[in-house]
């Protein structure tokens, strides 16, 4: 069968037919241009996520070693910063970092943040409506998670626009941008991350002098176990991971719902469906498409021999539409039972640290968005970004019935 370029227009606009074909005919398929095996069935993807001894996340250090000297010189500055992120480490190094991050995160008591997040959403929506802005991504989906993670880390909320920009540049490498940004992605990411680290270094110094009840202060209190570089690396990761993907989950929620207006109206009428609807968006159009692992020993899977050292792409986007697991998987259905659970947040030791926070933010935001923006619809077509690992829109222009106008006669 004909392989498709994961960064090409076909796989960017409508990837699902290809995944369905791979699941059926070649569930373990070598992709020469990505130099990776594509793993597309739910059970296999879950195995890849939950067996870190066989499917290693330690992917940046080996990549650096393999590169030719000229390319290595170019990539090393940015990749060496990401090398120590817990997302690209294995146990026991991962366990140590993750245990600390878990504790810091739990210490934020996110269940107690509901009212504050609701007020934040209301404030953003007020401003969105008042300003006449129609770019939902810039007006609401970006600032919401950025403000939440800023507060959790102990950063001033007014700085959110700055680290949003740095984070965008970092995403070019972390998620494998295609298109025009691909050529210069390493330089741009390095610029972004350097500024972000400079900012965080100052923030850490400030919090060291006068600690608060934020995550950085918590981690500083445990400092016999985390050195300065590790702390900086962890904070960079949390700040980055804490808002980029949630922004995309919010946008994808609106894309799914506006493309299924009957279900949007159902949800508006019955907000008790919101948690289900959020899980369905995560399944149907989750923000993370692919997670990467390295195989640590020769393994045979569906007749293919995967060699030790080979790279595998665990295709969440495909697993979440596996007909072996989900009934009628290509149908978006906000009433779908939440179990079996999609793999949108991963599974196992590297499961998204902020999964429950992301859920909380979107569950709080969605009904408020629908209430505040009656007749919500997209203004124009959806354009997906060319990206290996993420399912992201270029922007999200929306339209809605202005409250200032008299209600149309029914």
């Amino acid at each position: 069968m004909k392989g498709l370029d994961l960064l090409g227009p076909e796989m960017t606009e409508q990837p699902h037919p290809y995944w369905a074909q791979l699941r059926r005919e070649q569930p373990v398929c070598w992709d020469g241009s990505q130099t990776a095996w594509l793993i597309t069935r739910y059970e296999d993807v879950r195995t890849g996520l939950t067996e870190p001894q066989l499917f290693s996340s330690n992917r940046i250090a080996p990549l650096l070693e393999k590169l030719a000297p000229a390319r290595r010189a170019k990539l090393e500055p940015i990749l060496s910063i990401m090398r120590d992120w817990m997302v690209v480490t294995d146990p026991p190094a991962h366990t140590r970092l993750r245990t600390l991050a878990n504790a810091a995160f739990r210490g934020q008591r996110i269940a107690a943040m509901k009212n504050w997040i609701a007020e934040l959403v209301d404030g953003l929506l007020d401003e969105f409506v008042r300003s006449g802005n129609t770019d939902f991504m810039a007006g609401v989906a970006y600032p919401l998670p950025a403000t939440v993670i800023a507060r959790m880390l102990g950063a001033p909320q007014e700085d959110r626009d700055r680290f949003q920009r740095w984070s965008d540049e970092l995403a070019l490498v972390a998620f494998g941008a295609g298109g025009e940004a691909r050529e210069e992605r390493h330089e741009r990411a390095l610029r972004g991350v350097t500024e972000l680290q400079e900012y965080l270094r100052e923030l850490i110094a400030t919090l060291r002098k006068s600690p608060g009840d934020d995550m950085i202060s918590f981690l500083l209190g445990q400092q016999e176990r985390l050195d300065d570089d590790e702390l900086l690396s962890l904070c960079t990761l949390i700040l980055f991971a804490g808002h980029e993907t949630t922004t995309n989950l919010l946008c994808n929620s609106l894309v799914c719902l506006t493309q299924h207006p009957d279900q949007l109206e159902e949800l508006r009428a019955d907000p008790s469906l919101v948690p289900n609807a959020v899980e369905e968006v995560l399944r149907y159009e989750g923000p993370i498409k692919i997670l990467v692992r390295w195989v640590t020993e020769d393994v045979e899977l569906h007749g293919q021999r995967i060699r030790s050292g080979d790279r595998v792409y665990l295709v969440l986007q495909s697993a979440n539409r596996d007909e072996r697991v989900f009934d009628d998987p290509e149908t978006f259905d906000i009433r779908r039972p939440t179990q079996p659970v999609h793999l949108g947040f991963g599974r196992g030791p590297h499961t998204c640290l902020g999964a429950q926070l992301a859920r909380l933010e979107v569950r709080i935001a969605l009904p408020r968005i629908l209430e505040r923006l009656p007749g919500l619809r997209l203004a124009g077509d959806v354009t997906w970004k060319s990206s290996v690992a993420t399912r992201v829109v270029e922007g999200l222009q929306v339209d809605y019935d202005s409250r200032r106008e008299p209600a149309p006669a029914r």
Partner: protein
Amino acid sequence: MAKVTYRQPDGNVHVLDVEPGTSLMRAAVAAGLPGIVAECGGQLMCATCHVHVVDGGEGLPEMSDDERDMLELAAAPVDERSRLSCQLVVGENTPDVVVEIPERQL
């Protein structure tokens, strides 16, 4: 070895022999039982392995503050019998345990 009975919301019942040192979550996932999601794999970060302990709770570890905090995020109603099954590690002398799996984990 403790005998653990898992009651599903649809009335189905599964009984597993759980080795000391193994959590009720781990045993259920290994046996492929439905209803216990355990998205985070036992890191006490997700509250998707929520159960109601209806019998034998006295032989299980006491609830930590972290577990109490995370239970606030459980999808199904939480009551005094609620526990996160990743924290319910069977001991040498744990008596037989009966748990009910709630309708929702998310």
